[in-house]
């Protein structure tokens, strides 16, 4: 079979895949845009090929160039990572056509799960619960929607068919308010997308986002690796994940029930490789299929920590046509794992992206800490790609231990040169609701603010005052020194020389 793998990605996930290949004795081929010549995945791979200018559409999204590099380098397989081309059925198809192994699912599975309505119909037919609603039936009139609404039940959501980003979305609590809300939703959707069509969906209150990791080989074996809790989100972007979920916890029966349903969903599309079934789970532990991610997830390491399964190595094993290394009854969750996504964003400035050169980095290390990152001291963060620069993953014997360890690791983690979301996570881990495990997908947006979080905590204003004053004082001395130069202020020389020394 293949013994050289092209990694059609960049950043931490490219590094992750290269490591797995290297540990399996496989050769690796990196591709890079002009912005990434010095990126870690280029440095760590056995071979590296330039594929174009920085914008992804000119480089990492260019199927033709990737296939050309695969052929030129003799790579027998391509790992797509996540994002970019990972969920493009035509890329999986193109690999197949060229006789290159695509380390992921087959085109049909990607295409089916990539179309929301088809995915919903397919899994529903396999007996997987879906959120009640009218999605898939388009062009319904107001009268039709008003007739269906009571069957779905209130509260419910009006959503734009063309939609996204909350535009044209309305929450409906009673039949009476529905006509007016339909009108305004349609108007907003029309304005935003040029399409006023809407559909209805049951509103799951206090919903958690919980997902099940599955693995499927080419011999018909499908297993699940338990759940991940991903409700800590902002603008539908996950920020922090844990496994197990606090709302599943010791309820093994519930875990297995969700797991079995997830396996069924995967089987419904003849799934192969690693994949994830996302569910919305309500307070009463009813769960509804949300979507399937037909690829490796960002947050896969927390599942690796609690199950001991190396998911990327399993993907490669599957792609080589070998049976899974585990049966379902060999999978058990041990302890608790958490992942904090470290983004180059300023949590004190509305999570605004932050770019620049990383001047200094100090990684948290020691027992139970794993960092997956594609950056290093000296690397330049550019505006071309997403802001995820590092994943901090910890393991503890229990949720409490994992929280304590995550706190100490976050405090140790120092990144100089760009702003990061580290303070966000530090604040999150101090919130009593988070510690109690009682949060839903709206927690960050509705119940959390950095400023309030700061105000609630033990603070050291005197210390901050001393620090800032010493630095400001020094800046003044430094400026004065430059101006006066020859006429050195001897009363300050000691300070100055000390400063010079510590800044060297």
């Amino acid at each position: 079979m293949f013994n050289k793998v092209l990694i059609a990605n960049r950043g931490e996930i490219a590094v992750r895949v290269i490591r797995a290949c290297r540990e399996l004795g496989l050769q690796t081929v990196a591709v890079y845009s002009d912005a990434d010549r010095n990126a870690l995945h280029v440095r760590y791979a056995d071979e590296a090929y330039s594929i174009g200018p920085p914008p992804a559409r000119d480089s990492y999204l260019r199927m033709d160039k990737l296939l050309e590099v695969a052929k030129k380098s003799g790579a027998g397989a391509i790992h797509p990572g996540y994002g970019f081309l990972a969920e493009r059925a035509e890329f999986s198809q193109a690999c197949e056509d060229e006789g290159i192994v695509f380390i992921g699912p087959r085109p049909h599975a990607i295409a089916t799960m990539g179309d929301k309505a088809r995915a919903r119909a397919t899994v529903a037919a396999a007996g997987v619960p879906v959120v009640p609603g009218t999605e898939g039936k388009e062009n319904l009139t107001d009268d039709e929607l008003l007739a269906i609404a009571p069957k779905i039940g209130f509260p419910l959501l009006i959503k734009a068919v063309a939609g996204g980003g909350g535009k044209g979305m309305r929450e409906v609590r009673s039949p009476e308010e529905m006509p007016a809300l339909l009108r305004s939703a349609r108007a907003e959707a029309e304005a935003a997308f040029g399409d006023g069509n809407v559909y209805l969906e049951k509103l799951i209150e206090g919903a958690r986002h919980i997902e099940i990791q599955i693995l499927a080989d080419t011999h018909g074996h499908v297993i699940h690796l338990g759940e991940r809790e991903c409700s800590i989100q902002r603008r539908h972007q996950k920020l922090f994940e844990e496994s197990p979920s606090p709302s599943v916890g010791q309820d093994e029966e519930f875990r297995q029930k969700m797991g079995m349903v997830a396996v069924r969903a995967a089987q419904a599309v003849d799934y192969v490789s690693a994949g994830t079934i996302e569910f919305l789970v309500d307070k009463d532990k009813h769960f509804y299929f949300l979507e399937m991610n037909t690829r490796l997830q960002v947050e896969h390491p927390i599942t690796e920590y609690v199950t001991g399964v190396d998911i990327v190595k399993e993907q490669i094993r599957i792609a080589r046509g070998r049976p899974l290394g585990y049966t379902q009854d060999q999978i058990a969750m041990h302890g608790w794992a958490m992942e904090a996504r470290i983004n180059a964003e300023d949590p004190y400035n509305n999570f605004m992206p932050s770019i620049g050169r990383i001047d200094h980095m100090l990684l948290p290390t020691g027992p139970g800490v794993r960092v997956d990152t594609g950056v290093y001291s000296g690397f330049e963060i550019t505006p071309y790609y997403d802001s995820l620069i590092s994943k901090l993953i910890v393991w503890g014997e229990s949720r409490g231990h994992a929280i304590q360890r995550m706190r100490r690791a976050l405090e140790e983690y120092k990144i100089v040169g760009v702003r990061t979301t580290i303070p966000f996570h530090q604040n999150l881990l101090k919130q009593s609701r988070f510690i109690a495990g009682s949060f839903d997908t709206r927690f960050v947006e509705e119940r959390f603010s950095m400023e309030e979080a700061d105000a609630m905590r033990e603070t050291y204003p005197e210390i901050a005052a001393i620090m800032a004053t010493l630095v400001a004082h020094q800046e003044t001395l430094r400026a004065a020194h430059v101006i006066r130069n020859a006429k050195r202020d001897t009363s300050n020389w000691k300070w100055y020389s000390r400063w010079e020394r510590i800044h060297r």
Partner: protein
Amino acid sequence: MKYMTTVNGQELEVEILDEHHVAVNGKVYVVDMAAVSGQPLYSLLAEHRSFEGYIYENEGLWQVLMGGTLYEVRVEDEQLRRLRLAGGGGGKESGPFLLKAPMPGLVVAVPVTPGQEVKKGDVLVVLESMKMQNELKAGKDGKVEKVKVEVGQAVEQGQVMVSVV
């Protein structure tokens, strides 16, 4: 050397006595400060307690990020303080507001036109960077004077995009 240092609105008198002694509102702290890996990361031992903070200058203020908490700090000596107070309170909002791109990016929306009245906090430009849509807002009430960018345009960091007078 005496400073008036304001931390999140709280005024403190900070006097630097010598290299290892600082008084805050008269209380003396034994201190030892070092830049551990060059600026802006500092280690401070104060009364034997070990602290570590990032210290950033931002428009005349100091941001101290320490233990996951952000402190906004104003440091002034008597002269600076007198100057600022004499300048009056309204000085800040006078003059035009120039919306500069905080990072390189692609303009994806400009929901305002020249001559339009805007309130502080209204969105002037939506800029895409790092695959995120970032809403950039007016810093003051006023009238849009110039719009120097259009949808689809790539901008450099610091480039002025909209002015409000």
